[in-house]
């Protein structure tokens, strides 16, 4: 048992470190390091432009999408090299936020289902950040039950005509392309009548409307499709086989290892270390210490769980199922941490302005953003189902709509 790199890993790390040292946008390092959930970063700079510039620089030097094949804009690196890169990229990795969906989900789906010519055309600019992609799956009537989606695609000559509405689409407002899951046959059970496409987000009939979140920010959008035309050549996988195609996409969503999930603990520990309560330093208060210790072991448990997965990658093995706990644990923890940090401030915890609030309002921002983390990318309840079914081998829920044609599933009057 050790935490040492193999000689090859050490050589790779040294090369990555040297390149980052020489090329990263150092002027933003401090701001990026301090950023946390719920706080937009980089005052006085357009974060999209900074992020795109950094991504392009990485791509030109062969450091973008490390695990992708070289011909598609990657480096052909091993999974452990990808992890080492993420460790070394550190706070600059936060600039990759706008590319996560494209690189983590759209790219792998294109790689598995697009034609060779399309892959060579679309993947390199996706890797380099010159083109940004989004994923158009969720709908008002299909969130956790994504196969219940209603957006129609109808064949007309060599084209498909799309009508319907998507929702919770991250980054649609700055995306150039998207992958789109549609219903092509409503007369068969819901999983059997879906088809996947990719499309140009500038196509006529596509309308993107930002959603104002409960936190006041707008990360997500509604996307409306009115007679949008997509050529059949942009279909991914067979007609009505879209569910299987989407599983490739969703599988990749949960494969990210090594970047580490935000728990809020380091911020809370620092805060308690400096906070003075009436009777003395917060960190010397018994109840504060107890709460901190409980959060500390969750945070360290997640950190070492991720190290176990990294060790498996280092040995060329597939990581075990234990990494599936990350999002579930961190999501509710960050919310509790935020509430507790406000509790420690007493009535003044209500203030969120950067000049009035402790730590410039970091915990107030975290509090307001936190509910979203427990819903996006699989709700806490879906994550528990996944652990129960895929890890523990418990039976799936009984699905009352499993063998019912989609157009006969009751909707309580909602179309």
């Amino acid at each position, binding site marked *: 048992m*050790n935490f040492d790199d193999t000689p090859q890993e050490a050589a790779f790390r040294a090369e990555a470190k040297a390149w980052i040292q020489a090329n990263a946008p150092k002027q933003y390092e401090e701001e990026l390091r301090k950023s946390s959930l719920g706080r937009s970063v980089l005052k006085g700079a357009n974060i999209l432009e900074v992020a795109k510039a950094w991504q392009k620089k990485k791509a030109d030097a062969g450091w973008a999408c490390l695990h992708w094949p070289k011909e598609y804009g990657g480096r052909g690196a091993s999974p452990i090299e990808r992890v080492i890169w993420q460790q070394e990229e550190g706070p600059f990795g936060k600039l990759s936020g706008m590319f996560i969906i494209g690189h983590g989900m759209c790219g792998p789906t294109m790689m598995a289902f697009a034609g060779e010519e399309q892959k060579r055309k679309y993947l390199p600019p996706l890797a380099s950040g010159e083109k940004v992609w989004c994923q158009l799956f969720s709908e008002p009537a299909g969130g956790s039950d994504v196969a219940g989606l209603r957006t129609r695609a109808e064949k007309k000559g060599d084209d498909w005509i799309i009508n319907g509405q998507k929702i919770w689409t991250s980054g649609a407002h700055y995306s150039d392309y998207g992958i789109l899951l549609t219903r092509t046959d409503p007369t068969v059970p819901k999983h059997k009548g879906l088809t996947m496409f990719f499309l140009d987000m500038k196509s006529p009939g596509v309308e993107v409307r930002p959603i104002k979140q409960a936190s006041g920010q707008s990360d997500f959008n509604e996307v409306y499709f009115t007679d949008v035309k997509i050529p059949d050549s942009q279909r991914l996988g067979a007609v009505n086989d879209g569910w299987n195609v989407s599983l490739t996409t969703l599988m990749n969503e949960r494969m990210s290892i090594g970047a580490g999930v935000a728990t809020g603990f380091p911020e809370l520990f620092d805060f308690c270390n400096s906070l003075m309560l009436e009777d003395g330093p917060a*960190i010397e208060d018994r109840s504060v210490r107890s709460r901190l*210790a409980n959060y500390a*072991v969750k945070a360290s448990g997640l950190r070492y769980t991720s190290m*176990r997965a990294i060790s498996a990658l280092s040995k060329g093995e597939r990581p075990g199922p234990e990494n599936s706990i990350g999002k579930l644990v961190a999501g509710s923890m960050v919310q509790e941490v935020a509430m507790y940090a406000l509790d420690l401030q007493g009535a003044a915890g209500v203030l969120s302005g950067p000049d009035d609030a402790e730590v410039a309002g970091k915990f107030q921002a975290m509090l307001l953003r936190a509910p979203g983390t427990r819903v996006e990318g699989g709700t806490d309840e879906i994550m*528990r189902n996944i652990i129960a079914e895929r890890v*523990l081998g*418990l039976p799936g829920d009984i699905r009352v709509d499993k063998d019912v044609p989609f157009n006969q599933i009751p909707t309580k009057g909602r179309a």
Partner: protein
Amino acid sequence: MNFDFSDDQKQMRDAARKFLAEQCPPKAVREVLDGKAAYDKKLWQGLAEMGFLGVAIPEEFGGAGAGHLELCVIAEEMGRANAPVPFSSTVYLAAEALLLAGSDAQKRKWLPKIASGEAIGTLALFEGKGNPSPKAIKLQASGGTLSGVKKPVPDGAIADFAVVAARTGSSGRDSDISLFLIDLKAGGVEAKSLTNVDPTRGQAELTFKNAKAEPLGAAGEGWSILTQVLDRAAVLLAFEQVGGSDRALEMGRDYALDRIAFGRPIGSFQAVKHILADMYVSATLARSNCYYGAWALSTNASELPEAAAAARISATQAFQHCSKNNIQVHGGMGFTWEFDCHMYYRRANTTALTLGSLSYWEDQLIDRMRKKNAA
């Protein structure tokens, strides 16, 4: 990075699991639970023959000379099997204290007997209610004799020797405490068995009346040695707790797959699935914290105090959580004497206390994190 046990260590875990599955089925645990024996003597001898009792004891003292990572994987299996033997008091506490502070003669006298299963050892620390603290130690040492009462002492009624924490000064500082080694069969010590929550692991009251004892380690160093012994034992006991957590989770999962209600396996209800998923989460967090503790223990890293406290807290929480919810998943049957669930529930809640309770270790963890932060 190789943050995992080696193939050899995993093979040792498999061997221990196989051995314990054969030699320590729930029926054997029940012999002790029902009071038919103070501990499983046959199993104890078997563990000695397998080399498990002395796995971390150097060869020159009659052990296998493997190491603490090997001891961790065996500890996990002892917890999984709920083994009714004085393993933790003898191996994690007494042997570790001897290895840390014993003279060559003391090691030669006791360590080979531990490895061969001839001697059971323990640590006599507590004197009634409360967590580890130098202030709580009143038992007096003077002129090479001990006088006072220790309770609860794990496995105290069956132990052949004990490491005893005693007061040798009155300055109010940690240096008032020294450790002693005492042969409990040599007279001067009265042992009384005490009723406790987990009858498969005995607890006793030891009364010392001018009992002859020899110093263990330097005078005034007792508290410092004890702190190190407790840290090392915390990691090892945490592996037992993780083994117990995993077993409780498996029992709950198996029952949920088997039990039919409302026309379907109860494991298909989300209310039940989510209980089990949460058990998996706490068991996984604990296991990962324990791996870090194992690394720190085996390399004697400066991170050991913090790693030990984190492993201890996480594993205590996981075992309590998994063992209580295993009963919940079993419903009424889980609350019967006949089903094995309560044996894990009892063990979870006694191991949660034996080295100092959760609140003690929470306090320790934050102290140690602060120290690291300030450094």
